[in-house]
């Protein structure tokens, strides 16, 4: 049964009196206990998709059309009050910059307990107990002391763990992590991902991992969706995406990731399209080596190639 369904989501942003199209009809399906990776580079719209789900959009954005259906309710139609009940409780988000998601003037214990108190009742003692428990779970060696620690006293990795604790405090049904490891040292990135996977193991949580790092995403997730310029171009299992990518963009990404041909690095020629331009036809066409005439004129539709493998490309339109 689908936990979250994003249907044909179209999003615009107004920038210096110009309308830019951010999302061009995004479709995503997340089931219970799924581990979905959302891969995309700059301008792909992956962060915006997530922000639309939790309704934390910047001021000048406009939702043109589409639905975000969570447990049979359209989140786009909910009021701010209703969304506040959902954020943190049903749907939790881990943001990229750990240290700025934490309030520097309060100890982390208080910030984590506050989440409990907001959603699960006013028992302060219970809140503290749960806080200590979850800090221990995320790897704080002395959790009863750590509750008093301030964010600036903690290292980057520990801050990120505190954020994870905050996100999981109320046992959400959907956990979204937006570039949780970008900016952290490479040797700690694996620790953080392993921790998240460990904590949600066996629980009834769906996990969405947003990143530009296709290697990390395929390691941590079972399903992968690839985004390019506000479109979802391919969706399949994590194993297949590295072995048998079908969309030219995905193929390019995997090649960049996998191969080092002697002394030359692999790359995809050109660069991502600017948001301002309206795209008719396939957005990847200018950079695609196998583009056909129709690719310029018509936007490709999403085709199911195999069970659990969808591609948005004219080449597979037979």
């Amino acid at each position, binding site marked *: 049964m689908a936990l979250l369904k994003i249907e044909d989501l179209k999003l615009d942003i107004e920038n210096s009196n110009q309308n830019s199209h951010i999302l061009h009809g995004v479709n995503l399906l997340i089931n219970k206990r799924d581990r979905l990776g959302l891969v995309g580079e*700059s301008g792909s719209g992956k962060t915006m998709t997530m922000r639309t789900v939790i309704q934390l959009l910047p001021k000048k954005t406009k939702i043109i059309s589409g639905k975000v259906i969570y447990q049979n309710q359209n989140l786009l139609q909910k009021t701010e009050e209703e969304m506040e009940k959902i954020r943190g409780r049903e749907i939790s988000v881990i943001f990229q910059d750990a240290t700025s998601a934490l309030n520097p003037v309060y100890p982390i214990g208080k910030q984590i307990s506050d989440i409990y108190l907001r959603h699960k009742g006013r028992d302060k003692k219970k809140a503290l107990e749960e806080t200590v428990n979850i800090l221990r779970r995320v790897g704080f060696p002395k959790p009863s002391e750590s509750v008093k620690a301030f964010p600036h006293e903690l290292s980057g990795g520990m801050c990120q763990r505190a954020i994870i604790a905050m996100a999981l405090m109320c046992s959400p049904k959907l956990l979204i992590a937006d570039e949780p490891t970008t900016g952290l040292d490479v*040797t*700690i990135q694996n620790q953080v991902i392993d921790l998240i996977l460990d904590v949600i193991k066996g629980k009834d949580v769906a996990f969405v991992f947003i990143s530009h790092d296709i290697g990390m995403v395929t390691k941590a997730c079972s399903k992968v969706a690839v985004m390019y310029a506000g479109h979802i171009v391919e969706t399949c299992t994590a194993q297949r995406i590295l072995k048998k990518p079908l969309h030219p963009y995905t193929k390019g990404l995997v090649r*960049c990731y996998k191969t080092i041909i002697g002394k030359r*690095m692999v*790359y*995809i020629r050109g660069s*991502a399209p600017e948001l301002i331009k309206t795209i008719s036809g396939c957005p990847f066409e200018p950079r695609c080596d196998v583009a056909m005439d129709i690719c310029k004129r018509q936007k490709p539709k999403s085709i199911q190639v195999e069970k659990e493998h969808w591609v948005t490309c004219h080449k597979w339109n037979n």
Partner: protein
Amino acid sequence: MNQNNNIIQLIDVKKEFPKIVAVNNVSLCIKSNETLGLVGESGCGKSTLGKCILKLLKIDSGKIIYRGNPIHNLPEALFRPYRKRIQMLFQNPLTSFNPFYSIQASINEFCNLNDDLKEKGEIIKKIKYEMNRVGLSQRILTSKPNELSGGQLQRAALVRTLIVEPELVVLDEPTSSLDMSIRGQIINLLQDIQEQLKVSYLIISHNLRVIKTIAHRVLVMYLGEIVEETTTKKLFNKPFHPYTRALLEAALLNINENETKDILKGEVTQTSRNLIGCKLAPRCQYSKKRCFQQKQELEEIEKDHLVRCWRAKEI
């Protein structure tokens, strides 16, 4: 180390900040037409080292010798001729251009370093030539930085650097802020330029794939010290130091599939910075008592392969 062939030599360079020794007695040398890679994570001092070479920071002790001439003590007026020979490419191309001025204006600023470019005609010709070399259209010249993409800006920064015809370019994380799918554009371009102009590079990066492609020799830094130094091939085929191995494992580049996972635990802490012994010891799963107590030296473990770890051969 062939004295005649060395472009630049750093001897026991030390740079301290309040409470932190960013660069702790680092020595290195770069030859002509060579690329030296400097690998390490945040806080290891590699960026600081790059800035010291460009005299953006003043070193506290040690020597920097350029083609046999000591430059670390020179006042700015005397160092100016060297500015033409040593240049830097910055990590974030957007902030390396003044947002108020066009690309053309920013590039023109650099022309004063090159004595051949006194006349306007010469300048225009040279810029056109370099724009061609990096694959940028002339239209870019009139644009402002925020109108261009990261890839375009980094190329424009390259044009600016090449205008002065340097001998050594310090590349400070040149592709970290660029999409993975276009990193190769810049790295391959840098290699082409090296072939054509015989320029040397000091490439500072935490991205091992980039280092593997472009560097001839590699230095691995941890908390201000060099922990391993060798050729690129040897580093990736036979890494000795636990930190190097951890980096390779994290980047999914390790050769040995059976290698124990998680060589390192925990994170960098203030105490580990101030240790007398090996700075990696608190995190290293191979550490012994001696690692904490005794100062570790860089030793030649094999031909042309130096490691700062007494247990390197065993593990």
